[in-house]
């Protein structure tokens, strides 16, 4: 664990948005405790077949790289320039106008100038100039070029693991330069050298083997869900009956495994179970899968190839079970992958049918090629057609605000569906200030595989802008619940709130839906899924 200052003001005092006078190329990197994640376990690296599996420590001088590491980097760089127009164009056209500079939550929360998106990109661009451009080759440092050295590589590693690939910078850039894309390339290159972090490598290996990040084996996965079933019965009197790996189901449901494992995500998982049970009589025929028991995809934080290898399970399982289409749970980067990569990588999914809601008959035209629908789209449609009996007042103890996840925002554009649901399941909803929501939303600070324990200071710094906006509505309207549609958020936001805005909880949308949902045959509901008394039911 890092030595996070108990008093959050200590972090604030360190922040200065005016960089030093010294040129950035002359400031060597200092890999600081609390700001980086531990190196990967060689076993995980080996399991997924990535090169240079060995124990290593970022704090050591010697990173135990292959002898020809410079050549590997150069060739990998070139290969990516040839394969990705995005990368090539983004290397060439930045005018350094600085519009993106103060848009990154890591810059806002640390004041470290190398966390300005433009400078993050320049770390790579400087070497690009040196290796691949005429001007850089001739004029060298005058043209902003520099040679790749071990110090430069360490600087890359430190700062490309201080980017959560949130794409906020790309919204403000006049050319749409997306630093996330550059970070993705940098991390691909790191993986060719064996410079992975464990919080990404091990979940990835787990997911590859067991189907989910936590390495839960099939029988245990089922047991955990059955535990929820008991819990739901206790609280509502209704026995829900989920099924697993069932052929003959119409719909395959996939959600991040984090929600099966840890609070408060578990309440959202119970929410799914209740919603599906509620809809069963109306014709919903859905199955879970233990093989594809992970919606999230930490491969995305490793390389395009590994993203594809993990994602492939979704279509493979849908095909094996013979379902008609796939329904996806609340998750952020899972949805970036589904929305912008899955069909291209592992499609076409021509063995599936165009998704149609069996309850409302709505055709999800926007998903007609991937055949995968977001639970919020699905639920919003149900509510719109009056298919859910809801008692909003059961959420009256909540004053809710909504955190747009980076990925569902800037990699999808899902803004109004969750808001529509929230407004239909609770009475008190307040938006955070407008420069901090929707496409301008701030990252939780822990995305893209950075939600480890040892980099807690980094996470608290990165989450500061988000937390500060919550603080604003907390103080102004008494907001006490932060709703989100992302499993990483549900894991990352609670400590963030405790640190910056104590007194604000975190919930998934479907948890709120389930609390408001009047289940047929339910007993008198006195507590919510968290075992807290419902409003009016307090002793």
């Amino acid at each position, binding site marked *: 664990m890092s030595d996070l200052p108990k008093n959050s003001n200590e972090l604030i005092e360190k922040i200065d948005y005016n*960089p030093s006078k010294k040129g*950035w190329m002359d400031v060597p990197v200092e890999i600081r405790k609390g700001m980086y994640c531990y190196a990967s376990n060689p076993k995980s690296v080996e399991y997924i077949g990535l090169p240079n599996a060995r124990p290593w420590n970022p704090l050591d001088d010697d990173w135990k790289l292959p002898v020809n590491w410079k050549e590997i980097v150069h060739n990998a760089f070139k290969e990516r*320039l*040839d394969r*990705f127009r*995005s990368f*090539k*164009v*983004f290397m*060439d056209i*930045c*005018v*350094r*106008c*600085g*519009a993106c500079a*103060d848009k990154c939550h890591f810059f*806002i929360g640390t004041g470290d100038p190398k966390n300005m998106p433009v*400078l993050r990109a320049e770390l790579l661009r400087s070497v690009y100039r040196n290796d691949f451009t*005429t*001007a850089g080759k001739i004029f060298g440092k*005058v*043209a902003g070029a520099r040679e790749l050295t071990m110090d430069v590589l360490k600087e890359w590693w430190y700062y490309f693991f201080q980017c959560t690939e949130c794409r906020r910078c*790309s*919204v*403000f850039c*006049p*050319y*749409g330069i*997306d630093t996330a*894309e550059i970070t993705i390339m940098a991390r691909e290159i790191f993986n060719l050298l064996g410079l992975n972090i464990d919080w990404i490598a091990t979940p990835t290996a787990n997911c*590859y*083997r067991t189907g989910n990040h936590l390495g839960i*084996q*099939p*029988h245990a996965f089922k047991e955990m869900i059955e535990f929820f079933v008991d819990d739901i019965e206790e609280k509502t009197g209704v026995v829900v009956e989920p099924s*697993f*790996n069932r052929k003959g189901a119409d719909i395959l449901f996939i959600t991040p495994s984090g929600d099966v494992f840890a609070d408060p995500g578990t309440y959202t998982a119970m929410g799914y179970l209740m919603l599906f049970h509620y809809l069963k009589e109306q014709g919903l025929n859905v199955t879970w899968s233990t*093989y594809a028991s992970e919606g999230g995809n930490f491969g995305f934080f490793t390389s395009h190839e590994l993203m594809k*290898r993990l994602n492939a399970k979704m279509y493979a*399982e849908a095909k094996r079970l013979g379902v008609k289409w796939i329904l996806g749970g609340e998750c952020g980067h899972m949805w970036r992958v*589904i929305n*912008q990569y899955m*069909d*291209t*990588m592992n*499609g076409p999914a021509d063995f599936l049918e165009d998704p149609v809601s069996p309850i409302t008959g709505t055709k999800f035209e926007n*998903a007609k*090629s991937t055949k995968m629908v977001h639970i919020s789209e699905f639920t*919003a*449609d149900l509510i719109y057609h009056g298919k859910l009996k809801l008692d909003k007042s059961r959420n009256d103890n909540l004053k809710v605000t909504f955190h747009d996840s980076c990925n569902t925002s*800037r*990699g999808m*554009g*899902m803004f*109004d569906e969750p808001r529509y649901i929230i407004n239909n399941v609770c009475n008190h909803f307040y938006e955070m200030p407008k*420069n901090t929501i929707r*496409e301008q939303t701030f990252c939780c600070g822990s995305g893209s595989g950075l939600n480890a324990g040892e980099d807690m200071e980094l996470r608290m710094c990165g989450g*500061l802008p988000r937390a500060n906006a919550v603080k*604003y509505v907390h103080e102004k309207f008494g907001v006490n619940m932060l709703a989100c549609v992302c499993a990483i958020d549900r894991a990352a936001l609670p400590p963030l709130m405790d640190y910056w805005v104590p007194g604000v909880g975190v919930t998934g949308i479907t948890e709120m839906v389930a609390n408001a949902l009047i289940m047929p045959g339910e007993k008198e509901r006195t507590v919510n899924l968290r075992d807290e008394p419902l409003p009016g039911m307090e002793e």
Partner: protein
Amino acid sequence: MIKCMFSLTVVIILAVLAFVGAETAGFKAQFLFGIAIPYAALLIFVIGVLNRVIGWARSPVPFAIPSTCGQQKSLPWIKPANLDNPTTTGGVFGRMFLEVFLFRSLFRNTKTQLSEGPKISFNLEIFLWLAAIAFHASFFTVLARHLRLFTEPVPSVIQLLEKVDGMLQVGVPGILLSGFVLLAAVSYLLLRRIIEPQVNYISLTQDYFPLFLIIGIAASGILMRHIFKIDVIGAKQLAMGLVTFHPTIPEGIGGIFYVHVFFVSVLLAYFPFSKLMHMGGIFMSPTRNLPGNTRAVRHVNPWNYPVHTHTYEEYEEEFRGKMIEAGLPVEKE
């Protein structure tokens, strides 16, 4: 600061070179600065830009990764953001139009401030957008106005443009707004780069150089028109000579003219190797020029290759016993 002074020095040297050459070395130097270099620069510009753009085009776009800056098109009763998250070709054109002509994304710019509390606030920061728009618009107006030197008869659009540009109707010859707006806007962009700590920190030599060069172009242009009052007929003769491929060097246009032409030549030749290529790049930016219909229409990756996956069969093989025990269905008992 060194980077800034270095760029300034280079631009001054370029100016002195052209001025002294044209004033003292006579016809030979005038031929060089008035004919040879402009032709060479134009050639470099055309070939260089084409080369760059073709280079970009050679790299495929494997994934459709638009930055979705507005509501997606999903359920029929939810209003999609047709320009910030377009799903149709028309929508993408609209988005690109806004980006190219109105700098849509830059318009969102805010300034982040941290104050007591702590309170983080995001205030509208419109000046970068304003200066950038003013700069580019006036630059293109000036450019278009120059066509009067390269055409005979001068097209009526250009004459009209000049009328509008000179609407202040002060001075003889009349003051043209665009030149002064250009100078003011570029000066603001330069000052901002020097004064604002963050922008100063990220700036490289090649960020100052075009600014000084453009200041040089605008300043020498204004000087020619209003102070030195050079021989415009001669300038036009030279320009017409260049475009009709019968280059001539008329007598006595004055050194300042050659400085102006030399600056422009340097800008042209410098263009393809620099960040000025953003003009072409913006059209090819995959976060802006692709529709957000990625779940409705499949995007094809030309180099998509097969990968190793952990198949269901392998999975069941490893866990079959436990699965059967837990009552999970299996393929092979």
